[in-house]
């Protein structure tokens, strides 16, 4: 049910792309998000997150990815997101509110997803079948 509501799945030449809504990720804890992402990527799916991970979550994802790398098996992930945005309002600073705004993120297995070019406003990637 939840999957139907929050997730749209498209098959493109044998490679599955999952578009994950902000709402779905918002219901998960940090470790749940990372586990979900790694499980999906390890099953050869490409994920497009409507809102990405916080910088701390990204660092944790890198850490857990390294643990799962094996020779001749999983070689890691390709992840691309736009730089996060910070709330620069005086109100936010005074009250110490952490208002990092995460942005669209693409994650996939390193052997299937290759980033061609990335700049502030555009990510160009190719997905390969292996």
């Amino acid at each position: 049910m939840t999957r139907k509501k929050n997730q749209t799945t498209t098959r493109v030449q044998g490679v599955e792309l999952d578009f994950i809504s902000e709402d779905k990720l918002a219901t998960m804890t940090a470790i749940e998000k990372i586990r979900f992402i790694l499980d999906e990527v390890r099953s050869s799916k490409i994920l497009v997150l409507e809102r990405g991970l916080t910088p701390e979550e990204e660092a944790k994802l890198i850490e857990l990815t390294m643990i799962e790398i094996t020779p001749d098996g999983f070689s890691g992930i390709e992840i691309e997101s736009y730089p996060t945005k910070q709330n620069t309002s005086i109100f936010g600073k005074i009250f110490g509110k952490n208002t990092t705004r995460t942005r669209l993120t693409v994650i996939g297995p390193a052997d299937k997803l290759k980033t061609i070019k990335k700049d502030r406003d555009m990510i160009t990637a190719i997905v390969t079948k292996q």
Partner: protein
Amino acid sequence: MPIKLFSWIKKLFKKKRMARIGIYGPPNAGKTTLANRIVRDWTGDAVGPVSHIPHETRRARRREDITIEANGRTITLDIVDTPGLATKIDFHEFMRYGLEEDEAKRRAKEATEGVIEAVKWLEDLDGVILVMDATEDPFTQVNVTVIGNMEARHLPMLIAANKIDLPEASPTRIRSAFPQHTLVPISALEGENIETLYDEIANRFG
């Protein structure tokens, strides 16, 4: 809220003289070359070996009590040279540099452990020098992640746009990618513009 406000006021009036600074960046950006340059300039010693093969540094190396005098200030730093951050490590890449399969696999295993160590160090630092290869695209995920972590922790950061001795280097590209951060174009290998880097280290971390 009051705790946050008080700690900000305390920081404002307290002159910090000691800082633990991590040197971060992707593999082969020149982190160890820079760490060697800083440590050699101020102590006459070195931190570790460098190589054209990625992930030469697979253990974080910390050098304590590096005293830098620049811009009329004196600052004592602990310098932590960290392994290159990456999201993927494939031993086949090392074989392309001529390593035997067993050696390449061992290097890959050690490299993954090094990345974990580098990530864990992020929690124990007072600031970061992010080394970027000025001949490469600056929008790598590693750069975005390190910058995001420093911004989220409200810790000072300095970007060293390295390898400006190479003709294809473009520090301007990095500056326009991350305009909110102080950037110093350098050649860690040749020592070019390194005095400016020391001035900025004293300004940012002193």
